[in-house]
């Protein structure tokens, strides 16, 4: 069966994830999620009520937890990894953005689409 569109969760700032669900998908205990909040690696959306987070934190946290498992890191290292993974993600996004904005002929120095010409243009 082909899953319907509505089944997808968008792992970005447009969606919210509960602390319990974040624990489940990242293989962490509730205490470990709390500890990561204490380290500043996770920022709850509000300071009161049950902890809820932006769904954008899921992918970097899962990646950091996978590295934790693979290299036997402690939780503080996971917190550092999350910060650096977020930073890398942001820098890559800025780089893509810069490449998109660069006008011809500056872009000619890298691979990418050539300037657009009308199919029926004169040359």
């Amino acid at each position: 069966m082909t899953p319907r569109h509505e089944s997808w969760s968008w792992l970005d700032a447009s969606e919210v994830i509960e602390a319990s669900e974040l624990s489940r998908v990242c293989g962490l205990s509730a205490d470990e999620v709390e500890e990561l909040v204490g380290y500043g690696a996770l920022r709850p959306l509000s300071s009161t009520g049950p902890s809820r987070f932006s769904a954008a934190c899921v992918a970097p946290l899962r990646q950091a937890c996978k590295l934790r498992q693979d290299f036997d890191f402690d939780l503080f290292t996971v917190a550092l990894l999350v910060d650096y993974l977020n930073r890398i993600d942001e820098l890559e996004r800025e780089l893509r953005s810069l490449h998109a904005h660069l006008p011809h002929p500056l872009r000619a120095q890298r691979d990418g689409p050539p300037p657009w010409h009308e199919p029926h243009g004169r040359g």
Partner: protein
Amino acid sequence: MKYKDYYAALGVPRDADQDAIKKAYRKLARKHHPDVSESPDGEARFKEAAEAYATLKDPEKRAAYDELGRRPAGQEFSPPPGWQGASAAGTGFDDIDLADLLASLGRGRARHSAQHAQPGRDVEASARISLEDAHRGATLHLEVADADGPRTLAITIPPGVSEGQRLRLRGHGGPGRHGGPPGDIYLHIALAPHPVFRPDRHDLYFDLALAPWEAALGAEIETPTLDGPVSLTVPPGTRSGRKLRLRGRGLANGRGGHGDLYAVIHIDVPATLTAQERQLFEQLAQASAFNPRAVATPEGTA
């Protein structure tokens, strides 16, 4: 059951302390981790080291393993009578993997060996799709491998994904065991380079070449969009590098809206001139007082 020499796998003596075991494992993991290793057997070497470390880092599992004695790697054997891991094996040792048996020790006897509910494995996948598919949505066929073997999964990508977008599809990963829930699918979207457009989130950019007279006098130019050509008004006095915006002509954002489309202007000249063109340009050069080096100002965005 086949014997595995975990100490040899990590390259440590059998009396190595925990620090030495951790250091040896991390060294091997760093070398063979699938994210960094280019060796064809890197992943297998990593798994071998990880399996060894999973047992040797845990005092209880290590003690159980040490009880098995030392044998040649790969030798068929049965644990000695009364071995502490025997209760997890059930009826016999013939078709059991040593790693599974030792892992079941760590899950705790309160859970009655390996019969507790286990969630299915998550599926991590990347999909490289065209801008058109990102704009309109598409059905993909993912090849995934789980405990039941390889399978093809048809999934529908919603319209509005952008470069680097991550999505989760709950409950469509590997099947759970003993009543556990199925895993999830995690999908990482990459956009294939497009012959015309460059995306920045949901905005699109493309280079629009203008003749000097089009830039100076203004023009109506038919320009491409993902939904078909539209007419773009180039205002008189348009400079190179200026960005002309077509509002709402970018990528769908999945929430009913669209990004914008930007034409990045650059001004081109004929590589060779006809006699008449040369004459007209010479007349213009004589008549015009324009000095681009004298009036250079930062380019604005329309």
